[in-house]
């Protein structure tokens, strides 16, 4: 009897000690059927392997458990339940679509685990989180951050390059949630104080079975914009350019904001000098050692190029968390939250990640996007100027 209770006491004492000495578990949810989430999860694994090869954190190894969210809110929520209650992960990571995040938030709130989010741009996600979610660390900029950052970018570009004059702006947006929120934010942020005249029209993205841009481009052409911006998906990139050429629509700036670009876009004659919004491109390797290390590691490990910024962003999420655990000396939630607040991570995105308050949440990572341009087959960074890799080519060449 005595012996039994002694064993029990030892067990009881050793359980927390054991938990602290096993692997540090990271639970990731990404849409694995989509290139963004597939490569995001692969890049996170790359970071985990790098850290483990260098001896791990606090003498412990990292372990990444990935579950497919299938781009569905209910599947994403079930994945959170599994990672927290079955796998007992120390931290949650990942995410791409806002719709999935909105389904996951009730479960996240229930457990209060640290979440390092790599997606979910919609302001609705921030509203659903509320001001009390101090465990939520949002790396990806909110939609209104992006809008504000572009407005700032175009102001600064016009100041620095007086030849570039933009007054009228036309936004073609895919009719889903992504495009609609892009349009709403652009209208608000560019429309402010009458600096810009903004108009727009929706189109059905080729990714959703559309792909006919005729009537949208007709409206755009009639508006005679200085800057034509489209918010859609990679499937729209070339067909829209081809149709614009056929209709002889020739704006001064032709700019796209899809989450990724099609394979071989740069091989098209029409692609040169198209501008784009984004967070990362391989050209950032020239100005950032962290980017080069990430890029070379990814290509060596997976024999493929990172196609979207979700790869370096997810890679950064692992490092941000690992650095915080190292600083805190423990995986205990409150201590790690404190340590995360002190994050200063020179990320492969060509900028240092810190957490500052957003409109509602306290921990917002990246707030600005970049303005880039396709030049001779490469995406060059035009703005912000401190990470620029090339000067803008303006205006967009006339169709031949």
């Amino acid at each position, binding site marked *: 009897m005595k012996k039994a209770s002694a064993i029990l006491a030892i067990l009881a004492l050793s359980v927390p000690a054991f938990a602290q000495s096993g692997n540090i578990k990271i639970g990731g949810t990404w849409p694995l059927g989509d290139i963004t989430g597939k490569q995001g999860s692969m890049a996170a694994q790359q970071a985990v392997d790098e850290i483990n090869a260098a001896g791990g954190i606090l003498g412990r190894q990292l372990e990444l458990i990935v579950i497919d969210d299938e781009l569905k809110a209910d599947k994403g929520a079930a994945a959170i339940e599994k990672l927290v209650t079955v796998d007992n992960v120390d931290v949650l990571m990942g995410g791409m679509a806002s719709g999935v995040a909105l389904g996951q938030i009730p479960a996240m709130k229930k457990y209060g685990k640290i979440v390092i989010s790599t997606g979910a741009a919609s302001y609705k996600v921030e509203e659903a989180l509320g001001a009390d979610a101090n465990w939520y660390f949002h790396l990806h900029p909110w939609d209104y951050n992006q809008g504000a950052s572009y407005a700032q970018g175009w102001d600064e570009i016009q100041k620095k390059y007086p030849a570039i004059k933009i007054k009228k702006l036309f936004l073609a947006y895919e009719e889903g949630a992504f495009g609609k929120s892009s349009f709403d934010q652009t209208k608000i942020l560019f429309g402010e104080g009458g600096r810009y005249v903004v108009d727009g029209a929706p189109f059905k993205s080729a990714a959703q079975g559309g792909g006919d841009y005729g009537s949208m481009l007709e409206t755009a052409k009639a508006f005679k914009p200085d800057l034509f911006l489209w918010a859609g998906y990679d499937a729209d990139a070339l067909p829209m350019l*081809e149709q614009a050429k056929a*209709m002889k629509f020739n704006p001064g700036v032709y700019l796209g904001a899809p989450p990724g670009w099609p394979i071989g876009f740069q091989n098209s004659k029409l692609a040169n000098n198209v501008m784009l919004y984004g967070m990362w491109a391989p050209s950032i390797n020239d100005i950032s050692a962290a980017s080069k290390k990430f890029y070379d590691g990814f290509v060596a490990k997976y024999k493929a190029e990172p196609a979207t910024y979700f790869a370096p962003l997810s890679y950064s999420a692992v490092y941000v968390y690992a650095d915080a655990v190292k600083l805190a000396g423990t995986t205990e939630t409150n201590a790690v939250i404190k340590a995360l607040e002190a994050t200063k991570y020179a990320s492969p995105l060509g900028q240092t990640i810190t957490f500052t308050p957003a409109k509602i949440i306290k921990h917002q990572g990246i707030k600005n996007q970049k303005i880039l341009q396709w030049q001779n087959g490469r995406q060059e960074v035009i703005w912000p100027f401190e990470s620029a890799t090339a000067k803008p080519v303006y205006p967009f060449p006339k169709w031949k």
Partner: protein
Amino acid sequence: MANKRNATMNVALITAVAAAILVWRPTVLINGLQSAGLYASIAIPMGLILGIVHIVNLAHGEFMMVAAYITYMLCAATGMDPFVAMVPVALVTAAFGFVIYKLTIRQALKAPELNQLILTFGLAISMTQLANLLFTSQTRKLSFDYVSASLDIGDLSFGVYKFVYIGIALLMIVGLKLFLTRTTTGKAALAVGQNPRGAAIVGIDVDRTYGLVFALASALVGMMGAVFITSASIFPAVGSPYTMKSFCLIAMAGIGNIPGILGASILLGVSENILKAFRGTRGWADIVFFVLIITVILGRSIRGKKA
């Protein structure tokens, strides 16, 4: 007699409406016809299968996706033009369709219709996901200069390339009409479509005919998939929206009415573009499709009751 007068009236009415639209908003008619051609040329092979084998092939769009990827790989590797590649691709997809028919669909022909439907649903999932594993969801597109071919009339510049789809649809209709009425195999297929039991009694090999029709439809989808890559990006899920659209167009035309598919497509394409022409109604363009289908189907059922 009354029928003839009716038909003349209809033609006159349609011509008048088309002329009015042309004067009012020429692009509505141009864009409408261009999308109609695409809808029709994808739907016609499905209509052939539905009319003769009586199977709703939920993997129809995926067959086109497979053809598009084969064409893409072929053209990217050899620099061939898709219009040349469509010949070998059609042969490959015909064989592919035939094998799929023999391995799966044939086995389910005796089972209730619903089994065939869900079988093709399973095929659709597997094909999309296999493509996703092999090629990822990142889209691919080759660029061809002729796609941006343009015509100026006064102030109006518009693309003319996509009229090629109307041409393809017309070729398919004429070709199928000749095949089904002039050749022995075609006549047999038509007989099987109308009455498989009767056809079997007069000595037609029903199974062989089904296999042939499946291969022929797959070849047509294969050609379409090859041409499709000239103007559209491809990705694993690219085909699936066209399956439902095709299914609806066939129902609107009435099963077995292949020229009717083009008519339904034109009605649809032009109506969609009328809504797209106005700011306030632009977002509602998709609804036209479904309202038209219900109207046509209900209208036909009411007329059927009266007759």
